[in-house]
């Protein structure tokens, strides 16, 4: 089944409450996906600082810090349960290479100037508490609660999937041609860390964007290239986009007020948001890309 949520703030009014809003939304979707949860929260970027969200797996934070400090001098590590956010001015090409070669025991969840991304197995209600999601402020965020179908219940199998700088994707549904698409994307230089279908969709989006296509056009193309059923929310530094496949078996509802736009699989995920009862509430049409 799976549940997906997203919230985009149109004004600054609720920036401090973004984490709290998103946390409540994931709580509300725990019934649709009790296996694991994850979220990406976008905060303001600081000039040249890149943030790397890393799942430490079995490694202790101090051991990881010791190891990584050998290679890069100026770093800042902030710990969130078994994840850390590593901040540095070093270019991604160097850090990504480093993480792959020298610290392969940890897994990179995502990176960028704006994105903070966390995911873990367990009931969403516990996962959001573990990462203290309520304490985050930011401009927009997306999240996912998972009921596993395509691959195992692991951190790697959880959403969101981030396959490029400041990009990520959550998905409700399943894709049937993901193996074929994965093969052709690998040939084109894209790399994957799991057997999951959604990671392929995320890779597909990153691949198209790296070729200069915009997010809207990319999602439009996905209607013909990705076979299966889905509601996608794709996050970028500036906002997020929403797409349902043309059959539209997978639900989505949008609530828009003057302060925010909220998207969720079911309305009950947004029932706690301020003034939601007077919001403009509608169901996104099949095969139409919406973006904010």
């Amino acid at each position: 089944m799976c549940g997906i949520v997203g919230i985009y703030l149109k004004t600054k009014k609720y920036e401090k409450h973004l984490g709290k809003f998103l946390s409540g939304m994931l709580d509300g979707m725990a019934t649709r996906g009790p296996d694991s949860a994850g979220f990406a929260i976008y905060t303001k970027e600081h000039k040249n600082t890149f943030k790397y969200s890393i799942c430490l797996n079995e490694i202790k934070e101090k051991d990881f810090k010791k190891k990584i400090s050998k290679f890069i001098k100026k770093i800042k590590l902030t710990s969130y349960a078994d994840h850390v956010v590593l901040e540095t001015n070093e270019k991604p090409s160097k850090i990504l290479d480093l993480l792959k070669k020298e610290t392969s025991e940890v897994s990179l969840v995502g990176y960028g100037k704006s994105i903070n991304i966390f995911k873990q197995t367990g009931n969403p209600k516990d996962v959001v508490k573990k990462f203290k999601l309520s304490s985050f402020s930011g401009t927009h965020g997306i999240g996912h609660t998972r009921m596993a179908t395509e691959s195992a219940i692991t951190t790697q199998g959880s959403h969101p999937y981030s396959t490029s700088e400041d990009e990520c994707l959550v998905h409700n549904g399943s894709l049937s041609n993901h193996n074929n698409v994965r093969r052709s994307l690998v040939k084109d230089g894209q790399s994957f860390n799991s057997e999951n279908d959604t990671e392929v969709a995320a890779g597909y989006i990153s691949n198209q964007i790296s070729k200069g296509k915009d997010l809207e056009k990319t999602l439009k193309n996905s209607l013909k290239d990705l076979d299966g059923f889905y509601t996608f929310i794709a996050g970028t530094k500036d906002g997020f986009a929403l797409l349902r496949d043309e059959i539209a078996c997978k639900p989505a509802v949008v609530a828009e007020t003057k302060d925010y736009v909220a998207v969720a699989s079911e309305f009950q995920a947004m029932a706690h948001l301020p003034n939601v009862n007077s919001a403009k509430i509608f169901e996104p049409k099949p095969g139409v890309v919406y973006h904010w």
Partner: protein
Amino acid sequence: MNFDLNKKTLREVNQHLQNVDRKKNTRKFEILNPQGQHAICAGLKDDIDVTVKGHTGYYCAGMNQKATVTVHGNVGTGVAENMMSGKIVVKGNASQSAGATGHGGALIIEGDASSRCGISMKGIDIVVKGSVGHMSAFMAQKGNLVVMGDADADLGDSIYEAKIFVKGKVKSLGADCVEKKMDKKNIGELTKLFKKLNISEDPKKFKRYGSARNLYNFKIDNVGAY
């Protein structure tokens, strides 16, 4: 009588409504703070009147018999699904599969209904004052789907003997669904329905759609295949 879903569980409220004491006079109820919960007012079977103040989740007023349920808000997937009789009024918009497999009674949606409205309907009357989404009246067997606004793609795909009336534009018709002549008998039927549901509309402004009967009828040309 009021029920606040912030204070009482949905199960308590539904059980109360499903087992109303006929000897008591209270037949009017109000539900507050529905918060998008699923299956609100599902399985009502008595002639009672329930008003829901707010947005509901899936299967609101499903399997309804005799009761009148009015929702002052939007409803999620499958409102009034498999309804047998009674009347459901939605003041806002309805999500997918509104009135699915409904056998009887009336479902009135004052806003829009999204995809597959009236899927597999079996005798229910559905009136949508706004527009309906794609694949509405899919495999619809009996009853009337009346749309004041527009209908999205593939209206009436694989339809059996349900009747569709649309005042606005139809984006496209599904397999085996065709436009049919709106004759005196049809105008009379629609006039009767509007009168019953207290709707002031001119039946003459509607176009009628129904089955071409090519898909579900046995064709003698295919006898060799069996």
